[in-house]
């Protein structure tokens, strides 16, 4: 499963990857997603930052974008004596696909409405004086 996903990400698509197309994800986001998809275990932000050779804050923002767009899931790991930390793993491709279909449907509805509103705005052009020089 992770294999097919990273394969997908690397595929040369007309739209330069749906991640980017639909979610506006950046290059780093894709690298991090691929990293998580190929890694057998979930990773912490620190581990991710080290792997992609970026500041922790930069890696964190990127991971956050991936979480917000549903590509990556956050998991809490508790210490035995209190406290916890977070690790990140890729989401199930089926869930991601469902989420993307939903976003696309919303977008499609919004665009259709936009084109429809155009009609209301202009179907009855206002009266104006005859053309003059």
């Amino acid at each position: 499963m992770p294999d097919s996903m990273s394969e997908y990400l690397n595929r040369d698509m007309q739209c330069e990857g749906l991640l980017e197309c639909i979610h506006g994800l950046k290059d780093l986001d894709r690298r991090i997603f691929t990293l998580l998809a190929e890694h057998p275990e979930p990773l912490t932000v620190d581990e991710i930052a080290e792997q992609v050779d970026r500041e922790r804050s930069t890696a964190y923002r990127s991971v956050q974008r991936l979480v917000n767009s549903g590509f990556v899931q956050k998991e809490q790991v508790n210490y035995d004596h209190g406290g916890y930390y977070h690790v990140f793993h890729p989401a199930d491709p089926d869930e991601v696909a469902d989420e993307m279909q939903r976003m696309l449907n919303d977008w499609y509805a919004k665009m259709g409405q936009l084109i429809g509103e155009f009609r209301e705005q202009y179907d009855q052009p206002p009266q104006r004086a005859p053309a003059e020089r």
Partner: protein
Amino acid sequence: MSGPDPSPSPEQFRELMLGEEPTLVDVMTCVFGIQPHEARTYETLLSHPSSTVAELADTLDRDRSNVNRSLSTLREKGLTTRERRLLDGGGHIYQYSPTPLPEARELMHDTLDAWTGYVHDRIDEFGE
């Protein structure tokens, strides 16, 4: 006269999908492969049909040569037609009118449908 010619590029659709609040000008820009100022010229023609270049330049607050270029593109894309009107004192002027909105709108819907279908298919491949 040929009908409007849709020529969307994936690149422009991507921008349309990423835009926070796309406007109709954005949709037109994408679907017909025109510049925003050209889409605005079409938009203006809808509310000011039979305008001359001078009148459009005035309404759009742009100089005539720019408006002229926009109109050439719109005519090439089949989004605008012009009519020659003879002047009483001799000579003539051109008056420009937009291609009827229902026609342009239908093309926008069709192109949007095609693009959305394409993206749906790509997403389906993702889940497999």
